[in-house]
């Protein structure tokens, strides 16, 4: 048996009752990660656009941060897809020979469009900074400064005009791009929902509400992640200042941070309510219409996956953070706990859609259970296991660390130092 080639999916699928011979959990953890990560990208971008387009001034601080963070998240939206492909070397084919009746074929186009918008918006927002750096570094000696200056020179793409008129155009361009970016970000993610919602063979996935549900929960998770990372970074900076003896500065940082978080939390709550309402509507509608598939869906939702859906997703991931955020006298710690729970809740929602949709057989006469590989013993069990998922989660933070070195997203701080 050892020499037998391994059937994809057999290592993590446990079948129960009657399941067709070829049915396995083909879409595993990486396909859970894919909508989760694109959701974070889209959500981060929407948060930044709230400032750039709708002029929510109190969001300025977090808007710049989330714009840069959405760039760091961007490559990671495609990473899970690459890790999941059986033929990863052919990953470019959807771009070369797109078959447009497929929802996936649009991925390359939507993704590239979106990437260009994010990149150019960042460029317009930071162009002045790049030019200033080129001039500032000219004075400084040393190889590292020379290299840094070269990077900034490349980043300016030869546009050195930072007159008032030019900067005005920059600002306008950034606003226009942010405005175009909102529908594109929603499309990027809504269409991830469409990929699932349009699979007519899958009783759980098939729903026209799927794209909208995906967008709402995307914005929720994106805002939550930006708020969370923002708090961690600001706390760290305040901590450093305090240790350096700057108690006053530390206090200023904390004050500004609280203001930003309060405002962002309100948007988070709004989108959270919208997301939960849509999901509830979907659930109630399925139960009320009770189509052929309802028997098996009910047994999965209220039976096998009850813990995952109603306890972990709805209660711990939605209800508890909602209460934590709404109750008066909110502290920073309580906010952080709520944010972590929200992020967890959205992850569980993706899990329950992707894995839950494969938890029952197409025959409606059996079940499949997903045992996520923990200790990998092959490339496949690494990629589609716990460590593969952790790799995907860790990458954006690493990328952000690098990008932030050249494009400081928390400028209040850099201007001070």
């Amino acid at each position, binding site marked *: 048996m050892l020499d037998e080639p391994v059937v*994809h999916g057999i290592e993590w699928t446990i079948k129960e009752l009657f399941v067709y011979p070829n049915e396995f959990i*083909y879409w595993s953890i990486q396909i859970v990660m894919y909508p989760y990560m694109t959701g974070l990208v889209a959500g981060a971008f929407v948060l930044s656009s709230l400032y750039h387009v709708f002029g929510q001034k109190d969001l300025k601080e977090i808007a710049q941060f989330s714009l840069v963070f959405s760039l760091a998240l961007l490559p990671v939206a495609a990473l899970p897809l690459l890790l*999941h492909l059986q033929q990863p070397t052919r990953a470019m084919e959807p771009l070369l020979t797109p078959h447009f009746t*497929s*929802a*996936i074929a649009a991925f390359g186009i939507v993704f590239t469009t979106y990437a260009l918008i994010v990149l150019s918006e960042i460029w317009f927002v930071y162009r002045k900074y790049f030019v200033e750096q080129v001039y500032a570094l000219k004075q400084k000696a040393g190889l590292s400064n020379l290299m840094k200056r070269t990077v900034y020179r490349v980043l300016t793409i030869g546009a050195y005009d930072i007159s008032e008129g030019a900067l005005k155009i920059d600002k306008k361009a950034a606003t226009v791009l942010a405005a175009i970016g909102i529908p594109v970000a929603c499309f990027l993610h809504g269409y991830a929902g469409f990929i699932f919602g349009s699979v*007519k*063979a899958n009783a759980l996935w098939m729903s026209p509400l799927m794209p909208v549900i995906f967008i709402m929960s995307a914005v929720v998770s994106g805002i939550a992640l930006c708020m969370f990372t923002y708090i961690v970074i600001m706390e760290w900076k305040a901590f450093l200042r305090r240790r350096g003896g700057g108690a006053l500065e530390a206090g200023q940082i904390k004050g500004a941070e609280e203001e930003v978080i309060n405002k962002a939390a309100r948007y988070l709550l709004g989108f959270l309510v919208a997301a939960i309402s849509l999901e509830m509507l979907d659930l109630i509608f399925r139960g009320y219409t009770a189509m052929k598939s309802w028997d098996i869906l009910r047994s999965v939702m209220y039976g096998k996956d009850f813990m995952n859906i109603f306890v972990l997703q709805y209660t711990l991931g939605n209800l508890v953070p909602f209460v934590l955020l709404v109750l008066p006298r909110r502290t920073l710690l309580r906010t952080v706990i709520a944010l972590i729970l929200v992020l967890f809740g959205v992850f569980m929602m993706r899990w329950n859609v992707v894995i839950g949709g494969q938890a029952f057989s197409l025959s409606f006469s059996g079940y499949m259970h997903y045992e996520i590989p923990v200790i990998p013993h092959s490339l496949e069990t690494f990629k589609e296991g716990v460590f593969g998922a952790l790799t995907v989660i860790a990458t954006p933070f690493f990328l952000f660390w690098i990008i932030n070195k050249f494009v400081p997203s928390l400028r209040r701080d850099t201007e001070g130092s």
Partner: protein
Amino acid sequence: MTCSRRDFLKDTVGGSLVSALPLSAFTLISQAEAAAALSESKTRWAFLVDTTKCVGCGLCVKACKNENEIPYDAAVTRTWVERYVVTKGGSTHIDSPMGGRDGFIDDKIRDEEIDPEDIAKAFFVPKLCNQCDNPACVQVCPVGATYQTHDGIVLIDREWCIGCGYCIMACPYGVRFFHPEEKVADKCNFCYHRISNGMDPACVENCSFGARRIANLKDPDDPVANIIRTERVSVLKDEYGTKPHVFYIGLDAEVR
């Protein structure tokens, strides 16, 4: 200065666009080929399964695995046979161990003994790709690696499939799987290499009971096509709108 840079950029973009358009994208085909591609085919392959004749011996599954080089002991298979046992109490027991490859030699269904006295009806149902007229798998393939031939068979280009699994998810019949060795999507194609050369599919040839037969629906003299045309046949899961082309005789309401 600014102007010359603009010109330079213009020319660069234009030049690279032109050079990026490879001539190999265009293929010259002869007039005869073009006519053949455009004219309607004289063949529409279909399949007829007479469940009343199937004894569940599994020879079709064996033959298919050997003919199409699907690893013999792998759990996946291009065709399989399901056993249905309905008790007098109305409960239905279904199984298909190893796709029914070795026949159904055990009376137990998943270690459950069923009292023969309690059985209301029992039967076998062979399954294979339905070569749908409106195939969901072809619709969702992001690169066009799976496609429908002019005579109705859905094929897979192993050189072009990226292995995303979308087609596997889209098929309501669960006929698709990842080939354990090729690492691309795979499924039954009615033994296209055989039927295109005047032979029967491997499963049809190896069925000693005539439970499996292949038909050309566009041939008015095809005896199997005539059965499909004149007798009461049904298809699986027609609510999905895929227009399946495997027709069944004696399909029970319990069949999934």
